[in-house]
């Protein structure tokens, strides 16, 4: 090991100021390049989606059901409806238990062993690839019931949402000052009322943000739906018993697995709609969060 002494410090190599300045300028240039690259990449992707997508969006596109190749009057309304149904049911399935689980981690399990184990499990679940969740739900619901269904897709999305909402809930609740809890308890409120009435209210905007961000993330997930909801050219009638059309799988079917220009165009249109929806959710989230900070 090198011994650090005062003499050692005195003998530190002298670098010329010019060299140091030059190095600094070079790195600044590199960081500008990196920013231009990442923002430019985003601009490029969004521009491509907008340019190709805008051409195919019209009233018919938005209101009629998808059809096999060659039939006139095809649209994406069934996929849009299917995606909406699936994401909403996923939210309904995932959010209540995730909030309760977050409460456990933040209020009862902050220091104990079980809390740490569960926190670790939540972290692991957040890192599980979404396609693995697809496989899991395939075996859990598709094999046992014997058919693909929109419901299976919703469960897969719910499993992806669950740890995300749970961890954000914990983080948000932990940020609420302890004094607030103690005041409520001192006034004679029960733990339950303290948590649900006081702590939750203080953390409301953070909780909503967490749920919305999880929703935005899940609404573009494709991989877990491939083996669960699959795709169909029909309106989502049998949500529990039949393959259900949805946007992400429509996009991948129409672009990757189709040689036809007209289907590519519809894929771009669907991509634009999805982007707009996600952008919309993000902007709402930002506004909510912004209000809180003021």
């Amino acid at each position: 090991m090198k011994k650090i002494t005062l003499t050692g410090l005195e003998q530190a190599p002298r670098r010329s100021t010019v060299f140091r300045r030059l190095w600094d300028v070079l790195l600044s240039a590199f960081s500008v390049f990196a920013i231009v690259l990442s923002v430019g990449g985003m601009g490029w992707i969004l521009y491509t989606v907008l340019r190709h997508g805008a051409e195919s969006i019209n009233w018919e596109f938005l209101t009629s059901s998808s059809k096999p190749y060659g039939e006139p009057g095809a649209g994406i309304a069934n996929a849009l409806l299917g995606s909406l149904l699936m994401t909403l049911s996923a939210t309904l399935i995932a959010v209540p238990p995730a909030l309760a689980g977050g409460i456990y981690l933040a209020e009862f399990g902050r220091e104990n062993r079980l809390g740490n184990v569960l926190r670790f499990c939540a972290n692991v679940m957040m890192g599980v690839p979404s396609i693995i969740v697809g496989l899991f739900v395939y075996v859990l619901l598709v094999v046992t019931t014997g058919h693909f269904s929109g419901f299976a897709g919703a469960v897969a999305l719910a499993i992806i949402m669950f740890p995300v909402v749970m961890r954000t809930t914990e983080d948000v609740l932990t940020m609420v000052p302890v004094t607030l809890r103690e005041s409520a308890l001192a006034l004679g409120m029960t733990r339950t009322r303290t948590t649900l009435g006081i702590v939750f209210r203080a953390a409301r905007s953070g909780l909503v943000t967490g749920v919305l961000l999880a929703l935005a993330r899940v609404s573009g997930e494709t991989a877990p739906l491939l083996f669960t909801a699959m795709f169909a050219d029909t309106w989502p009638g049998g949500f529990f018993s039949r393959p259900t059309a949805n946007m992400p799988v429509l996009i991948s079917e129409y672009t990757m697995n189709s040689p036809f220009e007209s289907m590519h165009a519809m894929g771009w249109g669907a991509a634009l709609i999805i982007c707009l929806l996600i952008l919309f959710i993000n902007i709402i989230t930002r506004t909510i969060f912004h209000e809180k900070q003021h």
Partner: protein
Amino acid sequence: MQQQDRIFKWVCLGCALLIGVLVPGIFLQLGLDSAEAWQKFGIGFLWSAEWDPAQEVYGAWASVAGTLYTTALALLLAVPLSFVAALFVVESPGWLARPLSYCVDLLAAIPSVIYGMWGLFVLVPLMQEYVQPFLGETLGLMSLPGGEWLLGEHYNGFGFLTAGIILALMILPYMSAIMRDVFRMTPPMLRESAYGLGCTRWETTRDVVLRYGIRGLLGGIFIGLGRALGETMAVLFVIGNLIESPEGLFSGGTTIAATLACNFAESDGLQRSSLFALGLVLMLLCFGIQVAAQYYLHLTGARRGEAR
């Protein structure tokens, strides 16, 4: 009242336990469904590169190597870029930093299927027309000794390099956002002291900000790593989907997630079981990374005397 509290606590505990059931549940399911493949091929399944449905012979190596290859490429491209990008956002004035970090956050919200689509229709033709001929012929990498090993024999726009670039673009905003938050946490006093001593911006970053935020930095890299490993759609569109071991940057191949997405729906019997085995390998990889990350954070936390 006590009764109510007790019920509340148990309900919350029950919900939290769901997550504790889910993780072992996934392992158990993948393990049970892949038992047939493990029995047939043994542990050698991991490094056998053959995948032949006609002969009923399956091996994981092509997919595993492809996964590791694309992930390594993506990290190689994305880590330095996200690091300096985060640096720029932190150092730039407020009017510029806010819209920039907003952009980076939005970039993180674009679904991966759209990255894949963009890759297929924009990046693949671009790679085929310009980038690959340029690297291979103009720079003469192809004719160098070992060039074939580096690049592969021929090119058509698809392949590992394209997949690596798309993945890098995808994980860049994630990692950059985390690094940015970490850099922001450095106390301004420390940074200003460094400037006061005459350090340049880079020296301040290297000796002060980086030392202070090394945990968050590595945390960000781990998150990017996890995402790159398991990403399906963005890779599926541009990798070429050939179940072959990687030959070079331009050659087509597959990853675990892409193999699953491509073959699972039509498979049955031994092939399906082998696909589940692949899934188990991917799950173990991600689990390993998560454990390593947590352990590292724990370790550095303990060394710094922080209460975790």
